[in-house]
């Protein structure tokens, strides 16, 4: 075989190899050659006649009674006295044994909720009464439930109490009632103390 023939033969092989590489590239890149490639031939004719669309919207919403935001234990607290009622613990209904402190799951809530609570210490200048001196108790059925007593109440803590929530898996339009009690430590310094609490609604998981 002459040298020229050999070179021509090699060129043919080179072009053939490049062709194979190009075909492989196109075959595995469907966007470049949509009619080829894996899964391109199905044997069916398909046509799109419509789309389905839908948006899922989840909401949680709660509404609190006005008294629940302005809680007072009175102005005559005595050091050493325990279980002092918040002023609106026993004021509603006839006889007046219902609490005005409540939270309802609003009609806009399409998710059941857990309701949790946390508090911050009472402060008066440099003096402090620690928040666990306040206790709370709730009832998911009645504003005047007899079991909402100091005996059954829970300590108010500095972080949201998810283990013992105010309300668990509450659906709208249900209401949860609650009462607050306060222990005044025997060594408490006289003064006007202010503290606060936060009640939070979140989706029940």
């Amino acid at each position, binding site marked *: 075989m002459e*040298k020229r023939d*050999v*070179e021509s033969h*090699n*060129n043919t*092989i*080179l072009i053939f*190899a490049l062709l*194979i*590489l190009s075909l*492989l*590239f196109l075959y*595995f890149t469907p966007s470049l050659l949509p009619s080829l490639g894996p899964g391109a031939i199905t044997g069916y004719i398909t046509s799109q006649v419509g789309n389905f669309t839908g948006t899922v*919207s*989840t*909401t*949680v*919403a*709660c*509404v*609190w*009674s*006005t*008294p*629940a*935001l*302005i*809680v*007072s*234990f009175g102005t005559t607290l005595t050091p050493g006295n325990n279980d002092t009622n*918040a002023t609106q613990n026993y*004021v*509603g*209904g*006839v006889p007046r044994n*219902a609490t*005005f402190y*409540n*939270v*309802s799951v*609003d*009609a*806009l*809530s*399409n*998710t059941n909720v857990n309701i949790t609570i946390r508090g911050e210490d*009472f402060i008066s200048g440099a003096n402090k009464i620690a928040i666990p001196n306040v206790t709370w108790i709730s009832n998911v059925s009645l504003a005047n439930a007899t079991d909402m007593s100091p005996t059954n109440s829970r300590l108010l803590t500095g972080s*949201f109490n998810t283990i013992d929530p105010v309300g668990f898996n509450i659906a709208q339009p249900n*209401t949860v009632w609650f009462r607050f009690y306060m222990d005044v430590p025997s060594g408490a310094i006289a003064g006007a103390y*202010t*503290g*606060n*609490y*936060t*009640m*939070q*609604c*979140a*989706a029940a*998981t």
Partner: protein
Amino acid sequence: MKNIITTLIMVISVLLSFHVAQANIGLGTSPSKVVLQVQSGQETSVEILVFNPGDQKLKVSFAAEGDIAPFTTFSEESVEITPELQPHTLPIKNGKTTRVTFKPPASPQTKTYLGALSATGGPTEDAQFGGAVGVATLVTLTATPPPSVLDYITAQHIIIGATAIIILLMFIILKKRGLKLTFEKEE
């Protein structure tokens, strides 16, 4: 007559009790829960809508709680929300939207963060024991490790690479046998 007056007083007392106990401070949020996945070290964001189902204007502040707190930011610190119109119906009319951005730290392991985006209104400043109302959007965020180069290699890449290597080997063998490749223009 005395009985009628007594009954009237009792009815008025009951009605007043209901009036005073009428709930009117509210807060809501949507969505109630978000589940996100993001590459660690990168940002992702969601929008949350807060609304007021009560009947008073409410100033609401935002905060992140739980594992997500260190790397979560809000587009606004607080917003003032006017109450929803009665009767309450979806969609929300007077809500405010805020964008929440998450940027979990880079990590070679997949990590799941749990937390909540809380919106809190109040407390009443002059109360002895002021209450604040809050709602929370629960967050589950999974941070995945950054991908390595190997993650981008597919079976197709391997097939093309192998074919290229075979062709290259073929030419090496041909060259060793004394063959030479040339491109010549035909005369």
